[in-house]
């Protein structure tokens, strides 16, 4: 069985995993809306910037993005200024995962907005609403229900992808248990890790299912 020290280590690893996933999904959802609106915008600059953002962050591995932020930026900074500095690995993880989640969620949000019937925008405009008012009061609220399922999906992906942070000196759930497994030679720690991942993803699934039903209340 687990010693108290091991138990706490696994607990702390789980917290690291959860923190990164939750920070990333929250930032990703907020900035995802911004990037999605940029993609839908008639403004050429906003459109191109958003396109480029999504192109880069979806088109390169998350692990590479993590390395660039954690390893490459301090080196670039050193070359440019001659001053050394280190990025806190937790901050680097927050930033990399948030930037990456933003790109994926932006596409999800854009698709959800485009799926709303065009008559809604016309009706809003015919009532005198500006584009902004129509978006915030009419169009975007109608996407919430359609966003819940893909958002839950993204959160589950993020939760599992957090295991990548073991490469930048962070002890997440998987690395913690792996260390124990190699130190003791017992495979049971992998079972513990699997159980915790499954426990967390089950909660996400149940919560998001409930949320979807609740938000769909206006549909017959």
């Amino acid at each position, binding site marked *: 069985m687990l010693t108290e020290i091991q138990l706490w280590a696994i607990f702390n690893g789980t917290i690291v995993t959860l923190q990164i996933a939750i920070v990333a999904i929250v930032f990703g959802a907020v900035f995802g809306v911004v990037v999605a609106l940029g993609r839908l915008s008639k403004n050429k600059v906003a459109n191109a910037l958003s396109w480029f953002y999504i192109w880069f962050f979806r088109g390169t591995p998350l692990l590479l993005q993590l390395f660039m932020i954690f390893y490459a930026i301090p080196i670039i900074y050193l070359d440019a200024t001659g001053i050394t500095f280190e990025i806190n690995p937790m901050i680097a993880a927050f930033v990399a995962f948030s930037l990456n989640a933003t790109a994926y969620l932006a596409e999800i949000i854009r698709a959800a907005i485009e799926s709303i*019937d065009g*008559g*809604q925008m*016309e*009706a*809003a*405009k*015919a*009532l*005198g*609403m*500006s584009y902004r*008012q129509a978006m915030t*009061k*009419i169009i975007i*609220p*109608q996407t919430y229900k359609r966003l819940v399922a893909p958002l839950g999906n993204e959160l589950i992906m993020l939760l599992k992808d957090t295991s990548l942070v073991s490469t930048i000196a962070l002890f997440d759930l998987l690395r913690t248990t792996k260390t124990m497994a190699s130190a003791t030679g017992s495979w049971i720690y992998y079972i513990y890790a699997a159980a915790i991942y499954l426990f967390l993803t089950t909660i996400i699934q149940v919560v998001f299912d409930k949320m979807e039903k609740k938000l769909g*209340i*206006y*549909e*017959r």
Partner: protein
Amino acid sequence: MSMVKLVNVRKSFGDLEVLKGVNLEVQQGEVVCIIGASGSGKSTMLRCLNHLERISDGEIYIEDVLSDKRANNKDQIKIDPVTVQSLCTDLGMVFQNFNLFPHLTVLDNVTIAPLIVKKEDKKVAETRALDLLSMVGLSQKKDEYPSRLSGGQQQRVAIARALAMDPKIMMFDEPTSALDPELVGEVLATMRQLAEKGMTMLIVTHEIGFAREVADRVIFMDGGVICEEGTPEEVLLNPKEERTKSFLNKIL
């Protein structure tokens, strides 16, 4: 006072010219029914009035104020957004597919534009909305979501929603075309009620009987122009133009 005036209005979508020089003037309190085959430009004409489409050529005046002007598909005049907004809110619009906001209750559908566009007080907006809903006979449905209503009920809510902005002109774009036959009557009754109150109305419709009964003037559009216009008796009973005759023969 002239409520709506179109001067030689043209509208093209790419190479397709939908309006080919429309001239029309509508007086205050007038009920104008617009008939014609699909693709004749009826809906496009209405949509140009409240800037859902911008014209390619010509001039549009709302209550004698210039609202859109363009020559040869370029040089669209820049009208300041506040003027455009106030002109557009003078025009209420009812759509073929209702376009109610499905995430809002019936009451919220009616109050949302007064609340966020006119920044009306919530109590004032709700009292007025309830009056309008009882006018269209749906005050008991105020807390329902649109998906729980029949098509006829939804369209009546849409009429109340448009009226909540105190429009001076109501435009109806085939308001009964998406309805089951037994639900058409209730919507027409609501519109008749509005006409009796002296509302200026522009109605695109295929309901010839209704047009005959409530219209002061009937306009027959064909191929992007007004082909014939006059009183309902003149246009619907004794049409002069061959195209009007053949259209009426087809639908009656």
